[in-house]
């Protein structure tokens, strides 16, 4: 006897709309990866909802053959929350840019994270407002000259990992547009995580902020400049996979295996599931040249989701209440005959 197993390919998630990003835009890589991940995940297109705000990146829903909603600037997190709370059977993806998510949408972002509503947030961080033509965003590095900061910005940027943890996030991952295979792995784990999964997608805006992630972008130097974190695996990286991270006086340090008596066993093993976020914070904040930049799933902690808690409370109250319908509700009011 054969069981029919539903399997999908990326094509099942591709709409017939022409993709309209600039040639070379990093967003292309993400939409393609996302379609692959969705196929791997096996949730059918009609059970998938892709919700976005406004921005170049937020146009993504048009390119998906799922239910999609391209909403208004900054409100994607709240609208996605409503979709999931209302209809928890759907797998909900939120597509958002660094401006959409962290400027106008900052409040909804931190509250969705705090509530741990079960949505997957792909935060396209190109450190610029693309759609409105090149103004600085809350992630633009201090000092950067942009169309709205002709003399350089004077603000420290948010670092999405940090803000996510500050809002008590249960999941944070980071991926790079040009690093396709790893990117897909991170997205897949985000999808599997129950709760608000924040994935910072480092993407290149060729037009207004070309090379913002240039430090990581080059294929040759990338292995030495990044570490791909996986839960339960040692934090090893480098072209020769001979570099690793250890803790020294409570701070992270990069070492070379085989030098100064360091062996593989000395290398920290990544525990993404530790509820205490301090080491996750240290990992997420790593910067070159001394330390590699962390990609992968930095934090993935189990906790009750808002939608589960809501459904559970409804079930509990239902079980105890004698009010089952509107007529019951009315019958149970204090009342009198006239």
């Amino acid at each position: 006897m054969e069981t029919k197993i539903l399997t999908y390919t990326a094509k099942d998630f591709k709409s017939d709309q022409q993709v309209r990003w600039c040639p070379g835009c990093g967003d292309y890589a993400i939409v393609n990866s996302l379609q692959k991940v969705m196929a791997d995940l096996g949730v059918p297109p009609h059970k998938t909802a892709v919700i976005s705000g406004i921005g170049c990146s937020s146009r993504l829903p048009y390119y998906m053959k799922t239910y999609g909603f391209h909403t208004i600037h900054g409100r994607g997190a709240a609208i996605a929350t409503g979709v999931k709370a209302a209809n928890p059977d759907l797998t909900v993806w939120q597509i958002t840019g660094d401006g959409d998510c962290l400027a106008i949408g900052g409040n909804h972002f931190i509250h969705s994270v705090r509530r741990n509503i079960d949505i997957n947030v792909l935060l396209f961080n190109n450190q610029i407002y693309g759609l409105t033509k090149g103004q600085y965003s809350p992630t633009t590095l201090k000092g950067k000259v942009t169309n709205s900061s002709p003399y350089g910005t004077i603000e420290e940027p948010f670092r999405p990992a940090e803000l996510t943890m500050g809002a008590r996030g249960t999941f944070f991952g980071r991926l790079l547009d040009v690093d396709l295979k790893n990117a897909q792995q991170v997205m897949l784990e985000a999808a599997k995580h129950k709760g608000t999964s924040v994935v910072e997608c480092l993407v290149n805006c060729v037009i207004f902020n070309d090379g913002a992630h240039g430090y990581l972008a080059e294929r040759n130097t990338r292995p030495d400049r990044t570490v791909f974190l996986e839960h339960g695996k040692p934090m090893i990286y480098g072209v020769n996979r001979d570099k690793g991270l250890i803790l020294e006086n409570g701070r992270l340090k990069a070492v070379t295996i085989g030098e100064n008596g360091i062996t593989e066993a000395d290398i920290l093993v990544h525990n993404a599931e530790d509820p205490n976020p301090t080491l996750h914070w240290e990992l997420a904040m790593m910067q070159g040249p001394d330390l590699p930049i962390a990609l992968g799933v930095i934090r993935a902690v189990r906790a009750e989701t808002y939608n589960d808690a809501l459904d559970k409370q409804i079930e509990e109250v239902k079980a105890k209440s004698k009010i089952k319908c509107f007529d019951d509700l009315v019958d149970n009011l204090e009342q009198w005959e006239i």
Partner: protein
Amino acid sequence: MEKIKVKEVDNVVVLFAGDSGDGMQLTGTLFSNVSAVIGNEISTFPDYPAEIRAPQGTLGGVSGFQVHIGSSKVYTPGDLADVFVAMNPAALKTNIHKVKKGGVIIYDEDSFLENDLTKAGFTTDNPFVELGVSETINLIPTQLTTLTQKSLEGFGLDGKSILRSKNMFAFGLVCWLFNRPMDKAEHFLENKFKKKPSVLEANIKVMNDGYNYGNNLHLSIPTYTIERSSDTKPGKYTSISGNTTTAFGLIAAAEKAGLELFLGSYPITPASDIMQVLARRRDLGVKVMQCEDEIAGIATAIGASFAGCLAATSTSGPGLALKSEAIGLAVMSELPLVVIDVMRGGPSTGMPTKTEQTDLLQALYGRNGESPAVVMAASTPDDCFHYSYMAAKIALENMTPVILLTDSFIANGTSLWKLPKLADMPEIKPNYVPADYKNYNAVSRNEETKVRYWAIPGTEGFEYRNGGLEKDYVKGSISTAAVNHQKMVDTRAEKVQNVKYSIPELEIIGNEDADLLVVGWGSTRGHLMDAVSSINEKSKNVALAHFNYINPLPKNTEEVLRKFKNIVVCELNSGQFAAYLRSKIPGLNIMQYNKVQGQPFTAIELEEQFELILKK
């Protein structure tokens, strides 16, 4: 023993006022309930202070509750009080202008000491003279505090708790005055204090002592009987606030439509109760999200609507302002959504606890672009149920946001409500996409009604992309084509206008050939009816046209209004509906009567105004 004089009256207005801590809201509610139980018509108006607890005894801390009871239909909480219970000098001072000539003031002698008078800003020791209280008013000083203390002697209650019961003494006394049934009163108290037996016992004791005090002392005032109302259709009733019925309307509509109900909201006076009433209804599966702000309130609701719920959001004026942009998204994405605005005094934070009708133009026009939505308004605490149900029905059947306006006056006020059965409510048929529809997209619509078809995520074969950008009329994809945009703008407008075919026609109350047509909308209906009836008892010169549907207007509006040479639009703002009517139906002779004081109309001022116009 001399026989007590008993006045038989048609209707009577009782006003309770005291410090926020004096329990006036409870007293008033109880009194209106025992009156309703015996078949009187009721209408109430709570008047809260802006502070949670202003310093005790100060003018800022006065809390009032007005009850109108009648043996025939009662439309408003009444203009002036026949009986006024004043718990302290501050209450006296802030409410004295609401007492009828020849009325009665019962006050707590024990709380009119020098210190109390000073707190309320009196400078002499006779507040009545200082206020110039009419001599026709009957003053009944009563040692409420002392009597309550005596009543509870030996109960083992602490002094604070004892003092808190003095409202029950006043309540008992007023029950005696109006021949209210004490068994029913006890019953209500039992329900209220189920979980606090000692409080219950004390309250019942004090209440009965208050009643007996009146009965035994033969206070030199006539008592009243008010006949059971004959206007009231027989049936089961309760006394209920507009916020509660508004919440109930949504519950009923969701069940009737076979949908889950979702409310996204953020607390704001005077709308919070709608959220709170619904939050208690987890047993009915109602999903209430208290969100981080008003924008998230509507945004989650839009998400829920997209996902297939009956979705609503509730707020007051400043919150509606914040929701403007998102309402535009609901217009553009043609999703069903109920937006409830319980209006309060503005602009800005304004006067949060006071009532006003100043959000009308905001509801109609407060969005960028040509952004038509259905706008409607409820008139009474009980018809908030009907209009909230209808708002949901219209939203679901026409795939449009509907803005329902209520206000502080009817949201917190209570009236009798005949308990409905779901089976008796009109059907609700959401405009679902037909199962065999081909090539569904974001703008697939019924070409006759122009209503967009609704596909619920989760349904196979109808995956589509919705959004806030302009769409191609046929393909549903993004379009900036010039003529297409015009067509889409016109289509969205037409869809909303088409709602006029399913709402009731405008009715004229009173004489169709009257000299003057009074026009109102929303919560002013009671006062307008009273004023119009009162004039028509003498002459037959006035008619009333009252609106609950504002956009679109009932389809016979123009025809009806054109019949009248003189029209006066009365509203609690500076003339918003008048401006709207002028813009929609040119050539009418429209006068205005406006009041922006955070208070409802009084029937008296309206009557005077109409008489004046008629004389011209």
